[in-house]
């Protein structure tokens, strides 16, 4: 009991104490997509400014709800990508592509069959969602999904793009100085 209490307190304090500028970063990964090709974070990040990662499984009802709602956000933001990371094992991963295609989704789907990325992020259960900037910084994360949670994700996306707009692009800086 003492051990658990100590660990809980220490981890909570550490997590609260980490300053805002100390960005949590997406770990390196190579995962298969549903067509069997290996994909790295860099491959995905090259196409978008911000990527929503949703960890889900074919047997998880709230996860499927979350995919429906998060997919709707893609129409609203041009620079937003969505990657659905399936936590299905070898037993059920065969059904992932069929489900995704059948539901009319066009977002990228990766298979974390051996739990590699889940372990790298310390994900305790599904559904789990992250917003990751193209430089790898995790700007927001959320555990679980209840109807309405997508609004919080939308707020964070708005905040991210608003801050991006305020910041001058690096080449603009050079032009001004020049």
């Amino acid at each position: 009991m003492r051990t658990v209490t100590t660990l809980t307190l220490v981890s909570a304090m550490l997590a609260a104490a980490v300053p805002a500028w100390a960005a949590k970063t997406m770990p390196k990964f190579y995962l298969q997509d549903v067509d069997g090709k290996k994909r790295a974070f860099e491959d995905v990040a090259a196409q978008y400014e911000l990527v929503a990662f949703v960890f889900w499984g074919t047997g998880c009802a709230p996860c499927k709800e979350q995919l429906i709602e998060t997919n709707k956000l893609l129409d609203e933001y041009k620079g937003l990508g969505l990657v659905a990371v399936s936590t299905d094992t070898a037993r059920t991963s065969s059904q992932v592509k069929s489900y995704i295609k059948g539901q009319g989704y066009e977002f990228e789907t990766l298979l974390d069959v051996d739990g590699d990325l889940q372990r790298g992020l310390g994900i305790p259960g599904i559904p789990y969602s992250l917003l990751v900037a193209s430089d790898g910084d995790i700007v927001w994360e959320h555990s679980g999904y209840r109807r309405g949670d997508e609004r919080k994700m939308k707020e964070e996306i708005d905040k991210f793009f608003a801050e991006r707009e305020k910041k001058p692009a690096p080449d603009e800086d050079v032009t001004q100085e020049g």
Partner: protein
Amino acid sequence: MQRVTVVFLLTAAAGAGAVGITDWLHVNGTNKAVYLRQREDGHRWTWDILQTELWAWRFAVGVEAEFDHPRRPVYERQFIPDPEGNELVQRYGRYRDDVFDVRAGTYDKTLGKGLTLRSYEDRDFGVYQRLDGALGDARVPVGGREWGDVTALWGRNAQEKEIEEGKPKPQRDLAAGGQLTVRPFDFVYVTGSAARAEIENAGTKEMEENKLYAGGLGGGWRYFDIYGEYATRRSYDTQFKEDVRGRGFYGILSGYLPRSSVSVEYKLYDNLAYAYNNPPPVSVDQYMITGPTSPTPGEWGYLVQVSANPLREVRLRGGYSYADDRVGEQKVIGEEVEQSFAKLRYDFPWPVVIEGGYEYLGKLNIIGEDKSGDIRRTPSLMVSWTPWNDHSFSADFERERRTDYTAGGRTFIYNRANAGYTYSSWLGLTLSYEDTDQKTQESVNPWEPPGVPRVYRYKNNWLWGEVRITWYSSTFQNHVFTVGYGSRRGGRVCSSGVCQQEAAFSGLKVALESSF
């Protein structure tokens, strides 16, 4: 224990201190602590799991530590008896660049579809088949195109131990294998895998040596995908001086039209399974029609599944599967499982969603005139409503009608209802109620996995209330605090938006999950 705490503190402190100063040093992790207090006798359990990974440039170290006080009974077969509790620690080191990914320490890996080797852990079912050793993956990217990849691994069982004269002794289970996948064209790939595993027969010095080989061919085009894998097994048991041969085939064919798909899976396994490979069963909606450690010598089954989104507001899913036990290609007396389901979901313009479903699951064991097992028919309804921004309500109800042949063909009813409210994604309230007219065996110990008999009592209604608060302490850290009280029947439970296998329990539950 002290060693683990030190590792954790150093890792977390290094991460907290160094991240942001440099762009090549990062730490991620989660700590989840759970406290349970049994209502009737005041008995207490605590459980803590810590996962953390520290990256420095292309190198990483990871720790996964789990502490149980007192010891979870599920470990009795596999771990050192310790009245003070269990302290399980898994560690690994890793290097990764654009071509190579090399790991040393504890890892999971599936070769092909798992017909030759699958090292994994499933705490819910008491499966601990992770390997301690080395694993290497390499991609072959040439001229901007990926031509394939290659995997090699070697390892011993990470946790399996036996007791000999009161002292724990690591078992000698050993696995080694590899896989090669080649993509000569974008639309076709060929894969081959081989594994050799030495399994120590429990309580003896005897070994079972397994050699498995599998080859697979897959491909796809815009409207379809196809994959098939054939495997053979040869095993030699030094205790019984027995040579066993097995084989297996797994295949899947999927067809796609705009916004709809159909898939058909097929399997035939004859003496293929051993401790480190659990071939994929065909399954519908996550019900596994063969268990993860099924002792049956052979299985045959197929699955047909459809998924469609014909209109923006309408989503449909349905499926049917059948499987039975086999020896060779002949059906034998034993369990046969039949399952089907259909679900329809509609998004109304006012923010209301309604989903209706029906499931049928029959698990029967037929011996002559006698029949055991049960048949379950379950209609369900889910409604959710978001009347204002920040406020969401949801409710679901299902009524399971179970004909139990083990109880002489009697029919019982199980009712389940959940109601939930969410405010602005940080506050969640859940109330769950279940009842049945069947007197059900309920495990007293909350950590027992389903199906492990220990101490039982009888109960036929359950009420559980839960409050969940999510706190975002800065731009990204996420703390989830949960308090629940009441009783729950156990099984696969989706509560507060998180699905997991829960054991039966009555009393108080407090949990804190922190990510850093």
